[in-house]
């Protein structure tokens, strides 16, 4: 008797008008970004069928997205553990400068220069991690401080762009197309994203990172060494920044101060867009990729449609605010669930 009336209640309430609103909200908070990406591709394709909708242009977009995706994936890790890394752009710039310097000034072989640079990236990440976990400096301040210091150190290292003594083999890393005519950075991106996705979702360290980000006190009481997990996240961000910096220098064929600084904003916009993708307000790798693609398609399409260059920062800033807004809404929706 009571069982039947309960069942009646359930069907009655699931037909209510409120459920449509919920469904709409859920759709928006999970698939809104993907929907936006598809819409952008459609609109640009219709308006510029010859220039935008072509294999060459899509490869161009992917190639541009690659470097942002790598650095943004690293940033995703620090956000997953509930921290921040504002040094990523500066680390990428710094490493991009010294990796060229190592070859040009110090005469290192390519592999050694790159190995040293990536190690420096990891080291800088660990410095960030130590400042945040051991010295307990707020991550925003610590990473901004370190990033600013790096700008100065880079200037001391070489105030002028380094453009000579760079082996052809080094520039070929980014400019080459080893497979199917696809630019190499795309493969670097896929490699980094796959590894980071596996670590985050399929290993114990990834599960622990998510625990630390969800509830740090509960994570600690579950036996997770919270500081180590955060160090790992910062080190990964450092590594990814260094890789982006290295690939960028290879692409440009020179080492110049401050070239990668702008990746900071792009990465943040992408990661926050990603956190409003598929899951409600959680930072994750697939979402970050979607966020990066939205940015890349947006920049590319606007350029092709002939929007003036100064429109780019407007688009970028607008997307950043929109992304954080959507992410916050998604989280609020999740909390009310």
């Amino acid at each position, binding site marked *: 008797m009571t069982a039947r009336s309960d069942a009646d209640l359930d069907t009655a309430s699931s037909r209510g008008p409120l459920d449509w609103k919920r469904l709409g909200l859920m759709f928006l908070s999970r698939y809104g970004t993907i929907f936006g990406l598809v819409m952008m591709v459609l609109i640009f394709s219709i308006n510029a069928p010859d220039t935008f909708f072509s294999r060459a242009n899509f490869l161009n977009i992917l190639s541009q997205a690659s470097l942002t995706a790598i650095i943004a994936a690293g940033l995703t890790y620090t956000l997953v553990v509930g921290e921040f890394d504002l040094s990523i752009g500066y680390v990428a710039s710094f490493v991009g400068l010294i990796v060229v310097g190592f070859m040009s000034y110090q005469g290192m072989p390519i592999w050694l220069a790159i190995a040293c640079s990536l190690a420096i990236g990891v080291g800088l990440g660990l410095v960030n991690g130590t400042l945040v976990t051991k010295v307990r400096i707020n991550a925003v301040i610590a990473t901004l401080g370190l990033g600013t210091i790096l700008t100065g150190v880079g200037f001391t290292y070489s105030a002028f762009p380094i453009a000579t003594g760079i082996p052809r083999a080094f520039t070929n890393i980014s400019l080459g197309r080893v497979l199917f005519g696809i630019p190499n950075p795309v493969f670097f991106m896929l490699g980094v994203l796959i590894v980071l996705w596996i670590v985050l979702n399929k290993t*114990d360290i990834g599960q622990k990172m998510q625990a630390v980000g*969800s509830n740090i006190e509960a994570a600690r009481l579950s036996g997770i060494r919270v500081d180590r997990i955060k160090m790992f996240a910062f080190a990964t961000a450092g590594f990814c920044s260094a890789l982006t910096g290295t690939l960028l220098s290879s692409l440009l064929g020179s080492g110049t101060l401050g070239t990668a600084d702008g990746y900071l904003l792009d990465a943040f916009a992408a990661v926050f867009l990603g956190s409003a993708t598929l899951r409600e307000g959680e930072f994750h790798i697939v979402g970050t990729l979607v966020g990066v693609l939205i940015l890349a398609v947006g920049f590319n399409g606007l350029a092709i449609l002939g929007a003036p260059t100064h429109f780019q920062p407007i688009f970028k800033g607008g997307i950043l605010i929109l992304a954080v807004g959507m992410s916050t809404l998604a989280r609020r929706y999740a909390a009310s669930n």
Partner: protein
Amino acid sequence: MSASVAETDAFTDGGSAAGGSPEPWMQIRGLTKSFAGEVALWEADLDVERSHVHGLVGANGAGKSTLIRCLAGVTVADRGEIRIDGEELRQGSPQASEHAGLAFIHQELNVIPHFSALQNMLLGAPKVTRFGLIDWKRSSVQARAAAERIGIHFPLETRVSELTVAERWLVMIAKAISRNASMIAMDEPTASLSGQESEQLFSVIRDLAANGVAILYVSHRLEEVLDLCDRITVLRDGRIVDEAMRGHLDKKGLVRAIIGHDIRSPEDREHITVDRTGTPILSVRDVAWKQAVKGVSFDVYDGEVLALGGLIGAGRTELAHLIAGVRRPDSGRFELDGAPYSPSDEAGAIGAGVALVPEERRAQGLMLQRSVGYNINIASLDNLRYVAGLPFLSAAKGRRQAERMVKRLSIKTPGTATRIASLSGGNQQKALIARWLNSGIRLLILDEPSRGVDVGAREEIHDAIRELARSGVGIVVISSDVEELAILADRVLVMREGRITGELTGSDITEPNIIELSYHDVDSGKGETA
């Protein structure tokens, strides 16, 4: 004061008050609300009279909060109406509710700690001057009058952070009556109060009722509800299942109405005999930390549930933290299974086999946005590896382990992938206990395991704890709920001011004995510790 008590008595003898006026002051009719297809409140009819203390009881998720939230204008009901003095209340507007004279004081008091009591009372003060500014002068005069009326004896300039929880409640009550509230809803007011503080609060509540204020009193503490309330409404699964005037319901009947069946009482429990001759699982020797723990020694044996009783602030939580590696003792030592044990942090303690289920379930235990399975598995990821030593985890193994635990502790959840935030408090707590069932621990400390949990869920939590004890894990339970100690513990150590003031075993574990030792004089208590 004495006159008003007489008035209260006049009200308590039942229907005469309701008979005096044909229309009840507040009428709730057919109030229904569902969330995401789940019924939170179904066709609720309720009358609230002024001058009555109206008890609202029910398990977590029974619909009390939904009802209160509808009254407060925070939630809009799907259908149904609320009438006050015959006039329909506009739902979904907190301002309309406040205007109608309804005030709400929640368990987590909505105070700003570094504001003074007076500043807190004036927050959102409705009195404005003709220039549209807040009329501080008139508001503060009213606030002071209200404070005096309910017998606040501390200066209103005191910062709220320096007040006790009981004093903060008085501030919030004074705030409500300074705005001429005709009904005050109170959610679990005594949750963190001592017995004496509760009594003081009750006398304020009775006095308010005597002066014509309606009190809606929500509490899990059934004795005080029975003692205090003129009328009790019981909710279960979103429906009102019972309503009774004072004296027409006893505790047993109330419990039956709340959970739908009888529960065990302390008298029914069987006492097991514990062998305390072998090596204890945990030995604590002369452990001290700051002013909170002053040289404590005891042993925990295989198969027993050891409980730490006493008042809030007796040093029990601090002691638990020392054992679980959250803090390091200033002096003294621990032994685990006879070997020296001195954890440097929580991870070290868990590695050695000691874990803590913390007091603040939501803040310190749960990863709320995560699934039930995730919350269960997070402390035993080692079991889920494809290959021991490699970092890769099998999702299938995780699901199986979580499903086993859900079954073993009968956690009520649609599935292991369900977000844990959507479970009831009792089932969340069971998931937190399940977290440790697969991790090979030797000793589990549970701090207030059934706080904020209804009686039915409490019993299931107790079953889980006992099962753990039988499986050879040492158990230390901290509880301020004396009845819980009497039902659950095989041995009780009562603490007071950082020291153990007494030990009770078997049938000596009774509420009067525990209470006596909790207030025991420390110096004369020393003899019993030895």
